[in-house]
């Protein structure tokens, strides 16, 4: 049953997982806890890109890309800072989060599953940080040295958070898929 159902539902699964992961992104962006971690610098570190990474690892680059695109659209529509009211900064870089995460995961999967997941999360986060800040510098919103400082002070903690959460989720999910059970909350 497992195989026949799966072969006909691959397309449906991709659509559904993308949709639900976008819902998680949007939800985290709205709630007072979860989406942003206030930092001493006054800028918040984010966890909103993690659904794109998880989607990319679990279901492939198309899903990762679509979640990223929707994340970008959402952050563009809700932004209240000039930086993210620029579609080039808000939308374009986000498409690549899930794609690079997927590529890193596929490249390293042969060696060690967990290593591949961790590196994929790191690569996806770095893609977000570097592309957003890079385009921000190119468009003239930030001075290069300021952008480099933000990349270090926020990019690194964001990578740590993303790696830990992605590892925990993907490893747990892959196990749950084989033997169901456990707490429902």
């Amino acid at each position, binding site marked *: 049953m497992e195989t026949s159902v799966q072969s006909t539902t691959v397309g449906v699964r991709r659509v559904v997982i993308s*949709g639900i992961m976008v819902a998680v992104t949007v939800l985290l962006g709205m709630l007072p806890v979860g989406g942003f971690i206030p930092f001493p610098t006054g800028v918040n570190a984010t966890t909103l890109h993690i659904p794109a990474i998880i989607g990319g690892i679990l279901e492939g680059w198309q899903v990762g890309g679509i979640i990223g695109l929707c994340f970008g659209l959402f952050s563009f*529509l809700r932004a209240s*800072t000039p930086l993210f009211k620029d579609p080039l900064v808000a939308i374009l870089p986000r498409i690549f989060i899930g794609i690079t995460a997927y590529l890193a995961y596929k490249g390293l999967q042969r060696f060690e599953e967990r290593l591949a997941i961790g590196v994929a999360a790191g690569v996806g986060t770095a893609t977000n940080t570097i592309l957003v800040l890079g385009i921000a510098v190119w468009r003239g919103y930030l001075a290069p040295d300021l952008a480099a400082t933000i990349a270090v002070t926020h990019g690194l903690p964001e990578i740590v958070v993303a790696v830990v959460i992605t590892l925990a989720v993907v490893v747990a999910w892959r196990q749950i898929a084989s033997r169901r059970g456990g707490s429902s909350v």
Partner: protein
Amino acid sequence: MSRRKRTPEWEFLRYVTLGQYLPTGSFIHRMHPAFKLLVFGLLVAAVTFSQTITVNLILLVTMVVLVRLARVPVRHALEGVRLALPALLVMAVFQVLLPPKMVTMAGSDGACLSLWAWQRFVVTDCSLRLVVVSVARLIELIVLTTLLTSSTTTTELAYGTEALLSPCRRLGLPAHQLAMVVTIALRFVPTLALQMERIVKAQTARGADFGLDGRWRFIRMIRRLLPLLVPLFLVSLRRSETLVVAMAARGYTGNARRSHRIRQRVRPADYLALGIAGAFCVLMFVLDFKA
């Protein structure tokens, strides 16, 4: 706990505000969603690439006209601007005092007029122009997005996306699937908000503390996120598995040609609006390049 902490509200549904739709029944409300999205895209492009004060003045006037046309209360349209005001002020001060290097170099004749200088802070006419343009741009974009969300329901947005992308289906772009992604996402945000509420309460019952700490305790904040986010992801993944089975059981395959219960009709006025927006966009580009 000796110290009183600010705890966030636990009724998470309160925070879920997706596009406050204001049914005023104006022309903009009645536009075909696909055309509305196209016009929106054109205007966003015009704003994003605008560089001069003249163009931005024209764009600001256009925004006023559009707000009147949509019969949206001015207060509602400017609500986003009010929220963005602090960030706007900080940005303006920074850009005037410490402009990015490329601005100081990129005058039309390579030189900027220095208006005021103190130690390493120099105010030039170039940096002032940059500030005026970027503040105006931000206001225009906020008004535009507010207009879109207050004149279009989420169903219409999904429908419009699908209609817009359907010509790309020949290129292999899954237009219908993309629209379905948006629909599922919008449908599940409130459901997952309730789920998140349950997780927070369950973890609190187990002794977790989700009070908001100061900015200096970010490591503690990060560690606190784990017992929230990991269950949230797992619960949503499990929900999506159920949804996959439910949709497949009802015969949804995603690739068949599907019809709609409500069909939107394209009217001549939609073409007219698109034409005007296109011409306007080109005009703005031309004005920008001339300057």
